[in-house]
């Protein structure tokens, strides 16, 4: 698989403080990467740099295009993004107009816009709030609207920046399952920056960053073995990883199992 995002020697300062210094990272096409790290580790800054919101030193390419002013519009058309506080981004008076807004900016025909709105609304189960004012919705519903707007763009890359923080557990799991489906069916690359380590169980790879440096990187089953590092960084471990590690310690299983059904079946063969 090709590298869809390439970051070479990224250096970025904020208030005279180095957030990244010669930072390197490649993200492969059709991968699902969970970016974790304590508050202030640089996760959100990295996302904003990828979206072209901050000036930086170094080289970044996204979808084979160098990230610069000239290519920014084209790159952004390939990225759907959901932030932690979607309120700050809402511009329309109804959910339907909100989802349509970015599609209209891309000059997509009206018939196609309507089709996409219906598709994403059905997918995220928000058909009942399409006529409502997005600002009047609950926190979880607002996040669903922001996600719908991002997915309606049919992006190559979906970036979540603490996007699921305010959503209740059941909706969070439902959304992560939908994203999983999109990831497989539409080959969408997912970058999920979060401090909720439980979300990492849904992805393929985990990148742990702290103070602008990569501490761990690799498939989730391998990365989550490094319990000590997770504890030192104050990140905790997903419940299934903790359970798996303890069961391995007592020789009840011989590998990390993050799926609950699979673990039950392995324990009681």
């Amino acid at each position: 698989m090709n590298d869809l995002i390439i970051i070479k020697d990224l250096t970025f300062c904020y208030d005279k403080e180095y957030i990244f210094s010669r930072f390197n990272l490649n993200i492969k096409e059709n991968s699902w990467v969970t970016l974790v790290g304590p508050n202030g580790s640089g996760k959100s800054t990295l996302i904003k740099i990828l979206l072209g919101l901050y000036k930086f030193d170094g080289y970044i390419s996204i979808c084979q295009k160098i990230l610069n002013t000239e290519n920014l519009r084209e790159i952004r058309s390939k990225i759907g993004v959901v932030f932690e506080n979607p309120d700050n981004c809402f511009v329309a008076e109804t959910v339907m107009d909100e989802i349509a807004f970015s599609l209209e900016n891309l000059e997509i025909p009206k018939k196609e816009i309507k089709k996409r709105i219906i598709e994403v609304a059905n997918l995220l189960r928000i058909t009942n709030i399409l006529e409502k004012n997005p600002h009047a919705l609950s926190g979880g519903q607002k996040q669903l609207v922001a996600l719908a707007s991002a997915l309606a763009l049919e992006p190559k890359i979906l970036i979540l920046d603490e996007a699921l923080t305010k959503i209740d557990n059941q909706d969070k799991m439902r959304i992560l399952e939908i994203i999983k489906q999109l990831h497989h069916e539409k080959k969408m690359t997912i970058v999920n920056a979060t401090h909720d380590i439980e979300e990492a169980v849904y992805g393929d790879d985990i990148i742990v960053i702290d103070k602008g440096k990569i501490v761990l990187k690799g498939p989730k089953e391998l990365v989550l073995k490094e319990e000590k590092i997770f504890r030192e960084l104050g990140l905790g471990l997903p419940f299934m990883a903790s359970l798996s590690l303890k069961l391995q310690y007592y020789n009840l299983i011989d590998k990390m199992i993050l799926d609950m059904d699979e673990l039950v079946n392995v324990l009681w063969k």
Partner: protein
Amino acid sequence: MEIKFNQVGYCYNEQTPLQKEVLKDINIAIIEGKINGIFGKSGSGKTTLVEMINALLIPTVGHIKVDNYIIEKNKKIVNVNTLRCKVGIVFENPEDQFFNTTVKKEIEFGMKYFNYKTDKIEDRIIDALKMVGLDETFLERDPFSLSSGEKRKVAIASILTFNPKVIIFDEPTLGLDYNSKVNLIRIIKMLKNKYNKTIIITTHDVDLLHQLADYIFVLHNKKVVMEGNKNDIFSRVDELKKYDLPVPKIIEFANKVYIQKNIKMGYRDDINDLIKDIYRYVK
């Protein structure tokens, strides 16, 4: 301090085209000296319910008895600020309300606003900071430069300066990383155990309630549909699922073992106890 809801309902924008009923027929009594959890999905009315306890919102139906106060529509509350000193609220994202240049000024503001009489304001602020694990060096720091966890602690310290009997935490762990969450859990436990505060927590974070709550009220479709001790609530897995609510992972696992393998492992609070159970059944 007694907190009792009597046939309480709340409707936003009453008698307007935007009218929206969010709560009805609420009849609950908060358990004094315990950690009370208000559990429900986003938009289920959790925040509305707790904001009525210190009269930030007034019920549109029924009344609430809080100590000697009756909170009821069309009835003026005498000394509402005294009530608000007895029942403190730590809001969701409390840091959004910071506007002062130092932590000291930020905490002082609330005391001055409520005309709180004490000749030892600074001592009181330092005591409150210490209770949440911050020292005197924070007094002159810019609140906006603090980490999310520290900001949350300053917000709690602001409330503690009034020495409230009841502290309400509205979605307290939202936006906090694991370490800050662990710290907050420690602080809330200490407020209950050491200072005998009555705690009310609204949350959709089931694992937080599992670790903290003594007693839980479940909100669904405008009403309280379940209430009981934590163990009782979380052992009613099917009922919670009916309301589209999750159970803690540890209980979900035990429930899966029961459904798939017909092995009943019982209610477990701690992962180490679960491991012992698994060891016993598997070996």
